[in-house]
């Protein structure tokens, strides 16, 4: 097995090679069509490499299960996101249909990306469930459920959605959460406007194709001008057709942005988890303090805190010394337990902060690097588009000048 800390990717090649449509009966015994993805792995041996990679088929819901498991099991990790379930931020040409071949293809790439990210994560890559996801086709689901993560998942979900106020959150986590919110908001906006702009750009290019047709018709009634017009028309057709490739490339850029849109969510989940652990620590500490206060009151006889029991005993007479001693003893036990709990929770909190912050720093570096790369490739795409435009119009200009 893989040592903890070493990336699985160093030992194994992983790819999502293909996608296929299947039909079968679902949980409610109805026919359904779904897509499965072929995961290929090949382990590198010192002596030889596998001539034929191992492979198995998984569907999207199984990927989701894996991710949910990882989220619960590694709450201090920024868990890589899955590609979107349904196509969002579409511009008019892209189908929002999950069965659309373009969507399936982009999802295949996204799923491969997800696996590679997990496999190169210092903590997640050594997980057994992850390994068996890649290598054991049958019975994997049962294995996952056997870990009992489902129970944790439910309470986690409840906690993440609950509102509570933390008195002393770690400032860095509060800032990170805020950053996650802003990142999510700005990328959503960017994707939305980009989709609208893509729609418009498509229109601009395609209308130029009409020039092709009219130039051709016009050239039929011309003598000397005819040839020039006709060939210019062909270039206009080429120009109109070129937008399809341009926009397909831009979709890759959009996918890169989308990954970080979803990553922002994962980041926020970690910050939220910190708040939760901090809150639980604060609750335990608060509880302990109040119990200690109660003990003090019983010992000195002064009542500083209001208690119904205290009031009733005042009204209906003092308690017996035996009763009082029993109470004190109970409190002492509770205080001991409370102190243990506070210590526990404190350690939990500290460890969480430590591990989470390490992963957050790792994530920050990864994000800066990846997004910079994405911007560079976006600029390169724009440059290529401009160069193509210059070429086409130069060709057309040559034809016009020969008119």
């Amino acid at each position: 097995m893989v040592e903890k800390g070493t990336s699985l990717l160093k030992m194994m090649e992983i790819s999502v090679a293909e996608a296929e449509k299947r039909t079968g009966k679902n949980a409610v015994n109805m026919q359904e069509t779904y897509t499965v993805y072929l995961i290929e792995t090949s382990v590198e041996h010192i002596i030889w490499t596998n001539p034929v990679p191992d492979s198995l088929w998984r569907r999207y819901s199984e990927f989701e299960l894996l991710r949910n498991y990882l989220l619960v099991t590694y709450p201090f990790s920024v868990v890589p996101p899955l590609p979107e379930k349904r196509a969002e931020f579409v511009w008019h040409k892209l189908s929002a249909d999950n069965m659309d071949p373009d969507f399936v293809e982009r999802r295949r790439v996204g799923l491969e990306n997800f696996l590679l990210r997990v496999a190169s994560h210092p903590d997640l890559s050594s997980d057994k469930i992850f390994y068996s996801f890649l290598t054991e086709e049958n019975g994997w689901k049962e294995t996952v459920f056997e870990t009992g993560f489902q129970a944790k998942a439910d309470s986690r979900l409840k906690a993440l959605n609950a509102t509570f106020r933390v008195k002393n959150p770690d400032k860095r986590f509060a800032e990170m959460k805020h950053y996650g919110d802003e990142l999510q908001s700005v990328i959503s906006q960017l994707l939305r406007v980009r989709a609208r702009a893509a729609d418009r750009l498509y229109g601009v290019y395609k209308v130029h194709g009409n020039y092709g047709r009219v130039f051709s018709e016009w050239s039929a009634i011309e003598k000397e001008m005819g040839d020039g017009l006709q060939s210019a028309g062909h270039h206009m057709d080429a120009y109109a057709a070129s937008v399809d490739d341009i926009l397909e490339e831009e979709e890759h850029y959009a996918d890169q942005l989308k990954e970080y849109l979803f990553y922002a969510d994962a980041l926020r989940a970690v910050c939220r988890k910190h708040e939760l652990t901090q809150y639980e620590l604060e609750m335990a500490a608060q509880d302990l303090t109040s119990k200690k206060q109660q003990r003090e009151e019983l010992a000195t006889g002064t009542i500083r805190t209001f208690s119904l029991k205290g009031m009733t005993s005042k009204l209906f007479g003092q308690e017996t010394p035996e009763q009082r001693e029993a109470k004190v003893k109970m409190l002492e036990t509770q205080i001991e337990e409370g102190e243990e709990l506070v210590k526990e929770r404190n350690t939990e909190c500290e460890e969480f902060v430590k591990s989470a912050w390490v992963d957050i720093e790792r994530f920050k570096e990864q994000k800066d690097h990846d997004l910079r790369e994405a911007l560079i490739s976006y600029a390169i795409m724009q440059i290529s588009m401009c160069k193509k435009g210059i070429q086409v119009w130069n060709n057309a200009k040559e034809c016009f000048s020969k008119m």
Partner: protein
Amino acid sequence: MSEVSMTRKQQDLILPNGTPVDTSSPASSSSLLNRLQLDDDLDGETRDLFVTVDDPKKHVSTMETYITYRVCTKTTRTEFDLPEYSVRRRYQDFDWLRNKLEESQPTHLIPPLPEKFVMKGVVDRFSEEFVETRRKALDKFLKRVADHPVLSFNEHFNAFLSAKDLNKRQGLALLTKMGESVKYVTGGYKLRARPVEFAAMGDYLDVFTQKLGTIDRIAQRIIKEQSEFLMELREYGPVYSSWSSFEEDLHDPLEGVSGCVSNCSSALEELTEDMSEDFLPVLREYVLYIESMKNVLKKRDQVQAEYETKLEAVVFREDKKTPVPSDVEKCQDRVECFNADLKADWDRWQNNKRQDFRQLLTGMADKNIQYYEKCLAAWESLIPLLQDKQDAKGETN
């Protein structure tokens, strides 16, 4: 007359008749020459008449507000008293000229004027763009007349270019309007068949009008789509800016992208404006030109119809030995003159059309090339900025 040569640009000019040219006034020859040297050479023809329209000015009076344009002429023709003129004319003066030309030279194709009526409230008659578009069209109109071997010698054209006060002339013209127009307007004669070559012209013009209409619609649609794309870009760029405000490492790259998008937006705006101001008006002008040509063809038909009808009447009434009466002969002459003039004008028009459209479409291609070049420059200059930190980081690792 001496040819206009490039080397004389800088020197003080002395005209062939010995008078020095006043180079201080804006209408002086040197500045005129500088402008004119950019004009196309008409197949090597030597020109002796140069006309330009420029310097629009707004005039506000109690009665009305209107624009006048300066019309500058430089010529060596003896038909003109002076070698150069500078007069101010308003649109209705151009309109007067065109009407006079149509009446006095009905066998010739008169170039079109930009549209007379503009809907108040829809178009601002005094906006810079509108005035400039109109000026260009008026300039073209006069140049086309000046280049025409017959029209350029028309007395009304001469008056238009030289008379200080055109209104007087206009007044006189109104009186003679009736008389002149009777000459060629014939009524109700039916032409049996248009001769093949003129029918071909008619067919060509019909199809050509259609195609120009289509091109106009396409160009308008492109401008609309580009404008909407521009709107999105203007929203798109700033998002990168607001993103950069809460990033550290990525701050500069994101700002850079925002700046790039902004540059591309400006370039696109320029392209759209240019197409609106330069491309569409010329297309529309040609549609008007075609209408003029069609009208000339119709007039020709009328003249031929009159001749044929009169000829038939004579043939029916008398026997063939009687000589053809003189008025029928005159009709025949008119037909032959008209046909000759029209054919010559048609050839000239076809030639000009070819040049005009070559220039127009090449111009359109150029504008698009310039747009892409500006965008290319912006994105290319961004790449080193985006990669910069990476290299620095690589060095410290």
